[in-house]
């Protein structure tokens, strides 16, 4: 038997963001404070992307940054805030000035829309949203949701359109160079989302050897077939959390929230932590390794 050469899908964070053209549609991974593709959001801001549409269930500072920097103009989602602290300050302001529009779904509806995209079917049925303004009102999507009588049982069901975005952006725990990815802890909607995109970019805390993933195939959550590119990106969700790797930095999150309440404060934050640093490594240097070490997860807790 001839041994196949291991395909190398590794690219840099900079190269990965360059693939995303203005106006592109993205599935945005992570859920709440867990594994958001924060470093990728920063890089999209540095490269001055415009007019992106983002599909996600619930996201926080990551998408607030994208709205603040005018990278994203449309969101289809279920939830955004800075949980435990307050409303997402930049998105609030961008909604008021008309530069950001939001189409509202529920978390289950969005997760099913990704599953539908992954399964290659045009819509998915669900028993939520019925009877509410989530069905009666739409912002920019004319085909947001439809209610039908089930052709088999006659009961009412809501149908939501599947999503097949240009890219799926996932931040995983570990991935090998050919794209076999492992995710510790909750997966949110990343299992379905990773399979919905036309191209999938997996960023990860660690690149591991193919021997490691191939010895533990039951730990692979996203197999290489779905994955187009792989990016090594340690601390890629900071200041949010990655299970088994690090906790969130509450001090930084609170500072972000307080400072971004005003446009001037946000511009200062953006300059200081995003556009004013050359890349992700420079950002981490600015945060400082003493702080990062303090946030490292303790065993057996994972935070």
């Amino acid at each position, binding site marked *: 038997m001839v041994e196949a050469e291991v395909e190398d899908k590794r690219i840099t964070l900079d190269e990965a963001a360059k693939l995303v053209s203005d106006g592109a549609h993205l599935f945005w991974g*992570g859920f709440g404070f867990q594994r958001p593709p924060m470093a990728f959001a920063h890089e999209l801001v540095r490269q001055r992307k415009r007019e992106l549409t983002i599909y996600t269930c619930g996201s926080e500072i990551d998408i607030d940054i994208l709205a603040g920097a005018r990278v994203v103009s449309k969101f289809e989602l279920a939830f955004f805030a800075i949980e435990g602290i307050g*409303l997402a300050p930049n998105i609030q302001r961008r909604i008021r000035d008309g530069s950001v529009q939001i189409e*509202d779904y529920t978390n289950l509806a969005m997760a099913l829309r990704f599953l539908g995209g992954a399964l290659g079917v045009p819509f998915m049925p669900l028993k939520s*949203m*019925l009877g509410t303004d*989530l069905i009666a009102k739409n912002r920019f999507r004319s085909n947001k949701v439809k209610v039908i009588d089930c052709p088999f049982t006659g009961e009412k069901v809501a149908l939501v359109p599947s999503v097949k975005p240009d890219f799926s952006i996932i931040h995983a725990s570990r991935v090998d160079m050919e794209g076999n990815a492992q995710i510790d802890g*909750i997966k949110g909607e990343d299992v379905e989302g990773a399979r919905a995109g036309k191209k999938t970019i997996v960023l990860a805390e660690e690149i591991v050897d193919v021997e490691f993933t191939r010895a533990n195939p039951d730990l692979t959550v996203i197999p290489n077939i779905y994955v187009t590119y792989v990016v090594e990106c340690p601390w890629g969700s900071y200041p949010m959390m990655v299970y088994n790797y690090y906790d969130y930095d509450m001090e930084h999150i609170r500072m972000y929230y307080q400072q971004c309440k005003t446009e001037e404060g946000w511009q200062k934050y953006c300059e200081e932590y995003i556009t004013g640093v050359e890349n992700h490594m420079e950002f981490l240097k600015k945060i400082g390794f003493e702080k990062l070490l303090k946030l490292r997860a303790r065993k057996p807790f994972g*935070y």
Partner: protein
Amino acid sequence: MEMSKKEHAKQGEYSTLELMAVCGARAIKNGEVVFVGTGLPMVAAMLAKRLHAPKAKIVYEAGFIDSNAIDIALSIADSRLEYRASAAIGLIETLGMLLQGGRVDVGFVGAAQIDEYGNLNTTYIGDFENPKVRLPGSGGGNDIVSSAKRIVVIMKHEKRKTVKKLDYMTSPGYLDGPGARERTGLRGGGPTLVVTNLCQMDFDKETKRIRLATVHPGVTVETVLENTGFDLIVPEQVLETEPPTYEELEILRRVDPMGIYIPRQQGEK
């Protein structure tokens, strides 16, 4: 000493938020599957598990199933919730298979507005076309209220929050009255209890309209009505909410020792 733990605390020995958390905890029965978010509902569920409902199974929509967290979490996806859970999976599992699949007994939600049929708003304040404030949105809230067997709402009691007409209906209570949930295709049972800082409310079985159940110690029916924007049914007899016991307070303060969701009071025992 043991006997005194079961005694009720006196007014001034506990805060309103503590009473609300205790009311929420008492709404959970042992062995139930409980779907909660962050904030007071999380504290209430963690308290119930340490008191009368050790076999309650707490589910968080991010994917944590049968969580036994020992630290208070800030996010629904917080790694703290994974501690001694039976599984950590994802949204299709929790909101889809467990909840929509009909396996959740009670769901806890909050709201910025509620109307007299228990319909809830967590999306917009003001007009949809020109809103004053954009709130976080449904998240899993609509999914929970649509499909859990019963719903407990925990929220602040103000005139502008208890309204005749919602600015936006995010989650379905009894819609416009008896039979409406069934006609609309909703499978869950709808809201059964609303806990506020002034009182507890339930729903009239015939009309599905919201009704005063108990007033918190020190609060009069008049005070409740003065702070209510919708027509609240007031039964002939309104009991006082059972105050927290010393045992409930002691355990509650251990659940949230840093006072993340329930700030510590000056001079508390």
